[in-house]
């Protein structure tokens, strides 16, 4: 049995400087954790404070959405396209 792969080559896009967005992400994630710590304190029971969870989750979602906007802007709606592999099986 043999196979034959037909590959559709895609255009390579060069990496750009992402230091600013990565710094933003790190700062926001640290901020999210600090907010969770400050709003829930040393409480170690089983009944979490919904306001603490809500503000923590909100910061996480805002970070993700803003990162998405940044990457879409930076790389002009870049989309990694999967190479299509056509596997052809030939009976001997």
């Amino acid at each position: 049995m043999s196979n034959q792969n037909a590959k559709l080559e895609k255009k390579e896009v060069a990496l750009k400087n992402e230091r600013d967005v990565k710094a933003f992400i790190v700062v926001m994630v640290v901020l999210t954790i600090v907010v969770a710590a400050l709003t829930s304190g040393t409480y170690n029971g089983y009944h979490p404070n919904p306001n603490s969870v809500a503000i923590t989750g909100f910061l996480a979602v805002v970070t993700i959405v803003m990162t998405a906007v940044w990457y879409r802007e930076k790389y002009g709606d870049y989309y990694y396209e999967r190479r299509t592999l056509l596997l052809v099986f030939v009976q001997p």
Partner: protein
Amino acid sequence: MISVTAPEWLGIFIGMIIGGLAEAWGISNPEILLRLGTWEDRLFVGCIAIAIGSGALALYGLSALGVAFHWGVKPDYVVGVALGGAIFGTGIAISGYVPGTIWMALGEGRRDAIYAVLGGLLGAATWTVIYQTAFGNWLVTFMNLGQIYFGGQVGTNLDAGFLIAVVWAAIMFTVAYTLPRYKGGKSCAYVNTHKGYKLSEQETARYEELAGVLLEGSSMPLGKENLPEKVNHDWSVSSNLFGVVMLSVGVIIGLTVVLEMFLHQIFGESTTYSWMVAQLWLTPSAWRYSDVVVNTIGWEPFSDIGTLLGGFLASIFFTRRFQAFNNVIPPTWKARFGNSQIKRAAGAFTGAYLMLLGARMAGGCASGHILSGDLQMAVSSLEFFVFVMIFLLLVARLIYTR
């Protein structure tokens, strides 16, 4: 006896570790679980088996030495767990998600995860309503054997429990070692016992195809000769689960679950959906299940946020799979239902609805039952896993193998 109960917010770090590592594995991509359903890629089974085996040894070894854990073993109400597992498996076959991977996928910027969250919330709400009825009460009380593990009642016979854990771990490692990851591929046992074994042309093509699946829709170029390229083209696609990286990830996840049980509670992901429903809609004052959930959930909402952040950070810094909510349809779904966004949204919503309904009915999901529970050697969790796999394989075969 060494005993600790940590502050709730620390749960974020537990979620981040597991979410980040699982994203790097590729399990947040629904295609991986759809291929598990069609039995083409058994990554999930192999990785979870490694985590369960290593975690069980650590858990029962430390218990026998006098370390106290927050066990939280799931009770085995035989019919409810079986029915929940069947519905849960059906939901995975449709959506390609489990509750935890929805959060990871959302962190990865996957668009269909948004619909899955909404479907999940509706599924959790449905169980809150059913729980109030005579049928719901019957499901959780009929043939309820209580919190039992392979050694008896939870927290008893810990010395015998360790010996059983050794056997259980050996079984788990054997499964991971001998089950080939890919359909028609070679197992770790074969590769490691055949010196000079080289990947065939077909296997190389399969690796390349899967790397493309994992990266499809990414909003950021991969770059060359960097860590993300190695993660995507070598580690995540490898069939050798006993390679240094894949094995380490499985062991770390198992030990992280044990650490969580030491610090606060078992690792779970699906109760948070019921908790959100209780906060937003079906209030504890009127709904008994909501009352149970808000008083017992512990730090799970924080660990779920950690899972979201872990998937997000891994997709930016390690795998470069962040999709920025591009439209991506899993190939297995696309081959069956086409490229329609609406159909995929409906599938993610419906599948997640069934999955969360089943998870709440059974009292746990892939994290609470299959990872934490099977690591604890809980009888209910083994039963749940068996029913999930039967219905996942059956329904996926009915849907996709046409």
